[in-house]
């Protein structure tokens, strides 16, 4: 049980992480007694478990994830949804709210191609395409707000430890923000200006996810743009 690489360190695929009987976590594999990294990422150790947090990569569905996607097709019994995963997701009509759902009716009365929906991954086991549900509070069609698409690997950074980053963003920009695990973020603000600031801040998190003191810098950026706005407001008034 020896850690070879240092925790919180950037590791490359094929790098030795540990030797001995550690438990294998995500993105790690074992040959003999040695444990290797399977991707570029940051080595994390949780008790006896060794895993690598990837720094890059697309969205891979997991059951229970909140995702936002666009309707791409309407079938006989449901909708096909693009959730930015390697698989097209299925939203069955039976998983829409209502007494019986819009079954046997024209499905396009509920959602049309191009509509944005907020959904939860109901089932996914890799052998079949993911199933979605919109039964649940806050789920369903998104009719307003701004959509920001960022890399799914940066979502944990956007949320921050125990939600620190996202709660700061919500408070400072005075916007309602919903984060889809698939990298689709939705922003609703009281004014277009506050939405614009929030969107900019989200892009900044994505761009600078790898820098020190990010939370403070974002907060500063938001307050600065607010000052600029106020100045502009007084000038026009």
């Amino acid at each position: 049980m020896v850690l070879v690489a240092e925790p919180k360190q950037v590791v490359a695929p094929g790098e030795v992480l540990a030797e001995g009987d550690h438990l294998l976590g995500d993105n790690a594999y074992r040959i003999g007694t040695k444990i290797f990294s399977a991707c570029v990422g940051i080595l994390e150790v949780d008790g006896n478990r060794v895993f690598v947090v990837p720094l890059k990569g697309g969205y891979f569905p997991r059951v229970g994830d909140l995702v936002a996607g666009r309707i791409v097709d309407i079938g006989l019994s449901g909708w096909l949804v693009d959730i930015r995963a390697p698989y097209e997701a299925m939203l069955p009509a039976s998983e829409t709210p209502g007494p019986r759902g819009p079954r046997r009716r024209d499905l396009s009365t509920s959602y049309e191609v191009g509509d944005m929906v907020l959904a939860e991954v109901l089932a996914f086991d890799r052998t079949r395409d993911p199933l979605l549900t919109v039964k649940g509070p806050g789920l369903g069609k998104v009719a307003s707000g701004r959509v920001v698409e960022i890399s799914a690997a940066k979502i944990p950074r956007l949320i921050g430890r125990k939600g620190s980053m996202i709660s700061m963003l919500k408070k400072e920009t005075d916007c309602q923000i919903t984060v889809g695990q698939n990298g689709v973020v939705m922003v609703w603000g009281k004014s277009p200006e506050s939405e614009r600031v929030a969107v900019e801040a989200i892009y900044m998190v994505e761009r600078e996810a790898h820098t020190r003191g990010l939370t403070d810098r974002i907060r500063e950026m938001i307050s600065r743009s607010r000052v600029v706005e106020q100045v502009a407001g007084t000038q026009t008034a």
Partner: protein
Amino acid sequence: MPEPKQPEKLIDDKGLRIDGRRLDELRPIKLEVGLLDKADGSAYIEQGKNKILVAVYGPREAHPKHIAMPDRAVIRCRYHMAPFSVDERKNPAPSRREMELSKVIRESLEPVVLTDLYPRTTIDLFIEVLQSDGGSRCAGITAASLALADAGIPMKEMVAACAVGKIEGKLALDLSDAEDKYGEADIPVALVPNAGLVTLLQMDGHLTLSEFEQGFTMALEACKTLHAMQREVLKKKYATIKEAAEEREEAEVVA
């Protein structure tokens, strides 16, 4: 442009090659990662006069659907030489040689990619040779595995490749175009260093058994050097991310 003349000597009196290298010396190598915005992963290599750009897309939905495998991802690879990459204009249509190279490059990378994690998908690799100077399949493999790693695709480790050959009766590492054309033999080798796996081994020309063994060892050593470079370049790109991790740790201590 006329075909460049055969150099009188491939090795001069001092034992140096036409570009001034020693027999066991690699060409100057420049590696870059993540330079394409639209690709999921990308890499660029300059090895001597070779200039090769690699883009990786995926894992993504397989199209046409029938190529998808139920238990793993399919890797598709296209090695292509730009019409302007050689002295005489090359027809941009894929040639027999390019199709073969696409296949051997794909097969040299398949053993390291953890394809079973993404069933029914494809991973697409595009290797574009912008300027060619011999040994481009090896440089292509080196850059392609870097691009795969940059795409965040789970893999056992990166593959490094290098050729060894024989010119004027002597073994020489990393042949250039002229040395390949007018030399006696050429062996491209791809190595998966930790696993000790050779995933590409070809040979044209003639070598004795002992020459082959000696040359093969030379190529393996060079692959290890290249592998260290790949790792360094990849980690350098992401090194600043470590700071963010430290910040997270600090935040945890405060909380």
